């Protein structure tokens, strides 16, 4: 149990769904999300008695695995063309950059670091310092990843719109 007395099983029962949501936003892939969460929880279980903040610990473990497991890259990222073969972009886009479906596909094409930073900023609502700690980089790098990620999404969206 953690210092606060929470058992591992009750933690998983309470937070498992939220962890899977986070991992799925991060990866965009059901199997990879399950894989990352399970692996992170297995690691956490081994050292449960020494973990003070299981939420932060497990989330960081999911994130670090996502960023470092190169062999899983192919299942976690989708080439742009393959992901954008539908009719989702064929609509009036005079004022609207793109729609959610398209954006979701474009998100999958970002480098993992950029995607992770955007997910932590816009899904988890974390500040740059916290993101930097989780990702293991400086706040300057976080801002650079966010900026590049958003620019890349904008460019890709414009390309999709132009080709639509």
């Amino acid at each position, binding site marked *: 149990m953690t210092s606060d007395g929470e058992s591992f099983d009750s933690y998983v029962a309470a937070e498992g769904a939220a962890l899977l949501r986070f991992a799925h*936003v991060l990866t965009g892939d059901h199997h990879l999300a399950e894989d990352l969460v399970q692996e992170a929880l297995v690691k956490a279980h081994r050292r449960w008695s020494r973990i003070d903040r299981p939420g932060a610990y497990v989330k960081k473990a999911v994130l670090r695995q996502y960023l470092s497991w190169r062999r899983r890259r192919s299942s976690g990222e989708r080439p742009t063309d393959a992901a954008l073969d539908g009719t989702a972009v064929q609509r009036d886009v005079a004022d609207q950059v793109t729609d959610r479906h398209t954006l979701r596909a474009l998100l999958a094409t970002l480098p993992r670091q950029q995607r992770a930073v955007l997910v932590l900023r816009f899904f988890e609502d974390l500040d740059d310092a916290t993101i930097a700690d989780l990702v293991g980089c400086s706040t300057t790098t976080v801002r650079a990843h966010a900026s590049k990620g958003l620019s890349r999404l904008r460019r890709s969206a414009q390309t999709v719109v132009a080709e639509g």
Partner: protein
Amino acid sequence: MTDMEIQLRGAMDDLADDAPSAAGLLDAVHRRGRADRRRRLIVGTVAVLAAGVIGGTSVVTVAGRHDTERVQTLQVAMPAGSSRSAPPSPVSTGWLPTGFPEPTVRMLGPNAWALDTRRDEGLAALQVQIMSAKPAVRTKPGRLTTIGLAGVEYSLYWVPTHAPGAPPYGTTPPEAEGPYAELTFERRPGQWVRIIVQNSAGDVDLGITEDDLLRIATGLVDEPRALPDAIELGLLPGNVVWGQLKNEDYGVYAGFVDADAPARPVDQNEQPNGHNGSVKTRVRVSVVPEDSLDISEFMRPRSTPDPDGDGTVHQRDGSTTALYRLASNPKLLVVVRVKTGFMAPAEMLKVARSVRLGPDAAVKPGS
């Protein structure tokens, strides 16, 4: 917020809604844990057999070969300004409230330490941080007061007992988690102290008063307190000094910073219930189990071969990483990581070979 950012949030919410179900997650985790334990047992046995029968891979063979070489490198004098092991805290606790055992010591940054202790009866975690730069003081949503005592000005930040997440303390740690007290003061010129007491139980009292905090503060003594003897380095670049030491069962981590870097206060995220502060290091040296996630990307079959058995060096994403199997325990790897260009690979391997794990090291293979 731009249209793109708004829609990005929407797209992420959609993704979250499509996440896999958590039903069966706990069973899957336990099954996987059991399988991992079996796998580690088998892999460990096979590795030992392989090393003995066929000489093993080039990485395994370095173990025996470098016993002699490691001793030689340890004889090299450390460059000025550095030391073989992490420097002790210059301050120890004197008086502590009832129930708190002797603190353990951690290094939080260059010239920064933490003395940690906790009690289960009257649940509270207590941390005394010592640093050489003035730390930031919290101002809200708790109550900030200033206390003058014997010519010293103390800043006291206090969050009373409350349910987790209750207004006005919201959802942001540390206030969100329960009662929290922080006393900050300059103990002597250039030496700042921050004493934190907290628990994460929400509506459970700390059992600590303002007077208790002041008594802890005034009871501190100038008595060096050594860190655990977890890791020792025989060689380091001359322009870095110790900046961090973590002694965990999943790895011993030492960080080194520029010797002339300006003093910095300890991160406010560094708290007794969660060690979240980060230190910007120039050289990171760690000892981790061979199946550690930290090095998993370098341990694939396609990893750079190691024809000479001297360890391996890898470059990726702007950083260079040297791996060297610890002579005294081949299931542990020494990892030296720097920003590419900061050190020559050959020099990094020299540092890796000079590492000795101390008797207090918490890391265990397969932990």
